[in-house]
């Protein structure tokens, strides 16, 4: 008897949760569906949900007309470039703060986080002019450098929170056994640090891929990543729903899949380890 009641409860929760989840997800689903429609079907009234002539034509059109592949490549270079550069700078810093903490480590961490409180528009003008004078407007180099800097505090914090959990006793044991600093890092610490570094990497790629202030303000045609490419659909072309959908689907698919895989690490990463 009790079992039947629990099952009924479970069924109700399942139905309500699925309905809400599908509602929240619907805009994405609708975009993906629309990307396979002809333009006529895309604006059909009443709307066609599943029963239309599926076509891949929009994808080829988007690539031919606006060179989607180039913008995709820009996004890849900018997000991977800034992430690897950021890790290169942040790993030693987080490492030393976690394993050789000083009196000021806590303050230093808070100060790094506080640089995130500075709104980007506050420094838009000088950054724009510096880029202009160095000939770096509409270049991937400028964006790699800027995204590295704005995400650096997050990378340091995330790595720090992971490194902090590596027990110090292991290091002492290795030292007692006569391990040199080099082998200590290479054989003892590195294997334990890799998972933390990997999830930091994933989260930062997602953040950099979707960054849409500097990428919009500093690029035109040449170095525009997907965020800026999609923004160019905001006027007349945006009325071609099927093509807009195809471009959007291609822009979000890789990062959506990546995000789904890293969702367990996401909470902890985004809250700098405050919520686990």
């Amino acid at each position, binding site marked *: 008897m009790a079992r039947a009641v629990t099952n009924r409860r479970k069924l109700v929760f399942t139905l309500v949760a699925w309905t809400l989840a599908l509602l929240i997800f619907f*805009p994405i689903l609708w975009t993906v569906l629309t990307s396979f429609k002809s333009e006529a079907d895309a604006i059909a009234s009443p709307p066609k949900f599943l029963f239309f002539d599926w076509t891949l034509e929009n994808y080829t059109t988007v690539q031919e007309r606006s060179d989607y592949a180039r913008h995709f490549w820009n996004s890849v270079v900018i997000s991977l470039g800034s992430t690897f550069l950021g890790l290169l*700078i942040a790993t030693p810093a987080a490492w030393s703060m976690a394993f050789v903490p000083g009196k000021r480590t806590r303050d230093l961490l808070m100060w790094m986080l506080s640089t995130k409180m500075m709104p980007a528009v506050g420094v*838009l003008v000088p950054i724009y002019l510096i880029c202009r004078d160095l000939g770096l407007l509409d270049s991937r180099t400028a964006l790699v450098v800027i995204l590295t800097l704005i995400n*650096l505090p997050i990378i340091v914090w995330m790595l720090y929170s992971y490194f902090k959990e590596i027990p110090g006793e292991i290091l002492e044991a290795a030292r007692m056994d006569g391990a040199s600093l080099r082998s200590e890092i290479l054989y003892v610490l590195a294997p334990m640090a890799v998972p933390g570094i990997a999830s930091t990497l994933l989260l930062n790629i997602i953040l950099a891929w979707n960054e849409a202030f500097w990428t919009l303000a500093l690029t035109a045609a040449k170095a525009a990543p997907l965020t800026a490419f999609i923004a160019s659909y905001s006027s007349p072309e945006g009325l071609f729903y099927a093509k807009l959908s195809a471009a959007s689907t291609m822009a979000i698919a890789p990062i959506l899949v990546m995000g789904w895989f890293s969702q367990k690490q996401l909470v902890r990463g985004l809250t700098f380890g405050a919520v686990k």
Partner: protein
Amino acid sequence: MSTQASRAAARLMLSPAVILLLMWMIVPLAMTLWFSTLRYRLLQPGAHPFVGLRNYVFFVTDPAFSTAIVNTLILVGGVLVITVVLGILLALLLDQPMWGQGVVRLLVIAPFFVMPTVSALVWKNMFMSPTSGLFAELSKAVGLVPFDFFGQAPLASVIAIVAWQWLPFATLILLTALQSLDREQLEAAEMDGAPPLKRFWFIILPHLARGVTVVILIQTIFLLSVFAEIRVTTNGGPGVASTNLPFLVYARSLLQFDVGAGAAGGVVAIILANIVAIFLMRAVGKNLDA
């Protein structure tokens, strides 16, 4: 026991990150302050004379400024209220036993990974367009006149889009916080006959305080600088109805080429962000000590 040598090595490992961040903070900030005192138009070549605080007076007395400040606060506040309240409800729901919980979670967090320009454009054209958007079709189907979202309620529409993007974040964090709640405490309260609402108010909500704090802090940082969503949907309009502070600074400096006024606006934005940060830290900071 760290030796002298390992301390020196630690400082060496730390310095690139610290120096870079210090430069990133100080150099552009000093330049913004400097430019904000100059008469500096990008389209007018020649000298940039010093004008003192005139740019600030110009920027702050512009009627668009007060609108932008109010809009910024409404945007941040509106999105925070929506995402925290719905986030708590959704987290409570997702914490219940159900079939396919994993998939439901994936569906709910998906909007967070959609880049801002895509979600803004998809909502604007395919859902909120008064001519062929899905909402217009729905209203026509039930015999109503389609609502012109961005014409009639531009700021509210932007808030709706931004809230859709951030609801997953709030939900996910609150759900994680919820799952660390001690079940025995809840069961004990249930046995003692505490009704669900009381259990929520006196046990669950206090437990969620830390999670809510984190959500508010982090979202505020990002929401104060919402830009892309406005840029691709309304371009700040109609008029300045949906212009927030970041967009106003962008418009002054890169659309009207007035570097001086743009820089002054940038300084104002930094001051505003710091005021909000101080208030936040005061109001919610005690929840964060652990």
